[in-house]
């Protein structure tokens, strides 16, 4: 039992690395994508739109397989599966975050931009001090949903052979002819997401001082 828990803890660390690295890259990258979707330059908008459509319109599991195996078939070169897994998660989640950012940015009344302009704030100052804080408050619930989904989606990394929590649980389960490891994995995911959702709730409370 102790050996099993140790293995599962190792799997959990892998899952958490996927989780953290994906957020680290896709949260800022999603912003770039959102800007691309909102630009007046049509070709950039079209390409960004197509990218978002593909990322949202095809299964993540398929994207994982594609990202890992496509370079091998095209260039004859293979690379580290963990890296492939991060790349796939990042490009997928950036698309979803981009749409959340866009909805937030577009929900801000244009009077806010106009008041800032008339008062002489620079564009950068307006964005970081006037617009962004309001956007964050509005998108926090949607962002929370997405981040919770990411915790569970890390289980898909096993498709390309990354030994994350669910893979470890499944292997242990078939080795010991028992569903207990699967059940324990469920508890692990639940605890992680409980923490994530508490963090988002705290964030929402912290920003609840204004309307």
């Amino acid at each position, binding site marked *: 039992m102790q050996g099993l828990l140790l293995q599962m803890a190792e799997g959990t660390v892998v899952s958490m690395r996927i989780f953290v690295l994906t957020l680290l890259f896709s949260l800022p990258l999603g912003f770039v994508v959102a800007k691309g979707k909102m630009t007046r330059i049509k070709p950039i908008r079209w390409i960004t739109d197509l990218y978002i459509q593909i990322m949202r319109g095809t299964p993540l599991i398929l994207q994982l397989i594609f990202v890992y195996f496509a370079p091998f078939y095209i260039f004859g070169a293979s690379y580290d599966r963990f890296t492939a897994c991060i790349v796939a998660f990042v490009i997928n989640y950036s698309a979803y975050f981009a749409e959340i950012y866009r909805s937030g940015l577009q929900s801000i009344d244009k009077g806010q931009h106009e008041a800032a302009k*008339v008062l*002489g704030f620079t564009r950068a100052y307006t964005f970081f001090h006037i617009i962004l*804080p309001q956007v964050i408050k509005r998108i926090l619930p949607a962002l929370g949903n997405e981040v919770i989904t990411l915790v569970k989606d890390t289980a898909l990394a096993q498709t390309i052979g990354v030994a994350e929590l669910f893979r470890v649980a499944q292997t242990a389960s078939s080795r010991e002819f028992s569903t207990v490891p699967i059940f324990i994995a469920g508890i692990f995911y639940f605890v992680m997401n409980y923490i994530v959702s508490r963090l988002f709730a705290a964030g929402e409370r912290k920003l609840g001082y204004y309307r």
Partner: protein
Amino acid sequence: MEEMIKLTGLRKSFGKNEILKDISFTLEKGRVLSIIGPSGSGKSTTLRIITQLERADDGTLEIAGRTLFSSIDGKAVYARPQEEREIGLKTGLVFQAFNLFPHFTVLRNITEAQRAVLRRSREEAEDKAIALLRKMGLEDKAREYPFQLSGGQQQRVSIARALALDPEVLFFDEPTSALDPELTREILRVIRELAEEKMTMVVVTHEMHFARLISDHAIFMDKGVIVEEGSPDELFGNPKEERTRKFIASFED
């Protein structure tokens, strides 16, 4: 008399829709101009061009002796961006919808631009803000957030926010249209006080009696042209043009 605003031959179209056709007027320092007219007449667009929220297509505009844009070969050519910014700081605008920053306290709404744009110290900015709040009768609201205030209070904060930057001319774009009659009076009182202090102002409004009371000069606009202008007594009391007469009559109950 020193000229604060000198606007000549202003033109503006949105697509094929010509919003402003040859608008010209001047406003002397310390005077109050009111602009009236039906919606869609181009009043707001005129203010928005002077305060740089929209770009002119053609025309010449001087504010406090500095040229924001001038007509060259039938096109408005703008000053350098730095010059635009500096001229922009001479103008203040009060919006119909207040547009306060909801995530800032009342105090910070008034200090933020003083600190970030004019580089005033916190102490100086706060002293200025408190003095303005006192003038607006809102000194006890400094620590509150905009959503905790009534519409009339929010509009007074937004006037304080504009005044904090010491503009040379202040524009009001239908400042009472979003307010109940009761709250409207608070705002009109503030504007009248500013007029008594010789603040140069341009007020777009539907409050005819008020416009007549506070302004030194009045303009009636319709369909993108100035139909008639003159002293408030002339324009409101004895309009020459049929269109002006009809419009003013429509406001008398």
